[in-house]
């Protein structure tokens, strides 16, 4: 098996920017005083980041995905995580078969 030196350099560059981002935000809030505005923003990060990652899939891919998202949320209301996730996947498979 071969490793191209430029490929390795690319991976090290990707590592640097990724690890830099992963420690950068942590490092910043640990060292600097976080005011009420920044604090409120940081508290909203989980909701905002999870939403932005899934928004195109859930809202703009098709009716099967949007309806399966609703089903997943309804299942998550009462059932454990794994059951809700598997139920959501099953729903999307069934709806894709029916709707397309």
């Amino acid at each position, binding site marked *: *098996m*071969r490793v*191209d030196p*430029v*490929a*390795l*350099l*690319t*991976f090290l*560059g*990707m590592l*640097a*920017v*990724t*690890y830099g*981002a*992963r*420690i*950068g*935000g*942590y490092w*910043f*809030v*640990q060292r600097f005083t976080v005011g*009420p*505005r920044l604090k409120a*923003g*940081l*508290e*909203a*990060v989980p*909701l*905002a*980041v*999870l*939403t*932005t*990652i*899934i*928004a*195109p*899939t*859930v*809202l*703009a891919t098709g009716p099967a*995905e949007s309806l*399966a*998202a609703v089903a997943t*949320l309804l299942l*998550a*209301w009462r059932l454990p*995580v*794994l059951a*809700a*996730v*598997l139920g*959501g*996947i099953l729903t999307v*498979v069934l709806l*894709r078969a029916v709707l397309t």
Partner: protein
Amino acid sequence: MSTIELRGQSDRWRVDFLLGAWQMLPLLISVIPFGLILGAASADKGLSSLETILMSGLVFAGSAQFVAAGLWHHPIPILVIVASTALINSRHLLMGAALESHMRLFRPAQAYLALFFLDDEIWATALRRGAEGPLTPAYYFGLAIPFYLSWLFWTMLGAFVGGVIAHPERYGFDFAFAAVFLVILFGLWKHQRRLLPIAVSAAVSLLVWKLVPGVWYIFAGGLAGTAAAALMVRPAA
């Protein structure tokens, strides 16, 4: 420190580690098709198996690795790939900052090692734990180590066998991450009932996704939702 105390500590480590690994199970399963597909796609683009494993082990960031594999050709466009990675993973700045308040039990070396593994899945699960009670290093590494090893394993297998899953959408695997994130989002929302960051993030994400090619939507939506929540705060009178 007595032997009994040490024993008690290592038991607590084991219990917390195993609890983390157990609660990571849905994600350990849903990552399988993504690892296989990434490995196969990388092989298809001309990365050797060893290069694919190195990328997974060093970078450990699924979406950035997919983009890198998509951009891969010879001569390798190193600057474009590194810049795309920086853009996609800029959300980790916000994510690490948000997790900081839950990492009080981590010694500095543990924290900086833990942050290497801060991908979306581990972050979201750790954060949910932190919302319910103390987040211990043992629990965190119980999430991170099995997930990291399985990511390496499945991308490697994908690179060796290539194209094992031709149409993942037929089995709904492509929906698995959306489902997991929805469930985690719902769990967080029960602790923190705020619709504004969700609504703003979703609207900006969709708008940018429609208008701008690439993955800017992830960054734009996350930043907009965060900024909206920050701007809503009224300064104390």
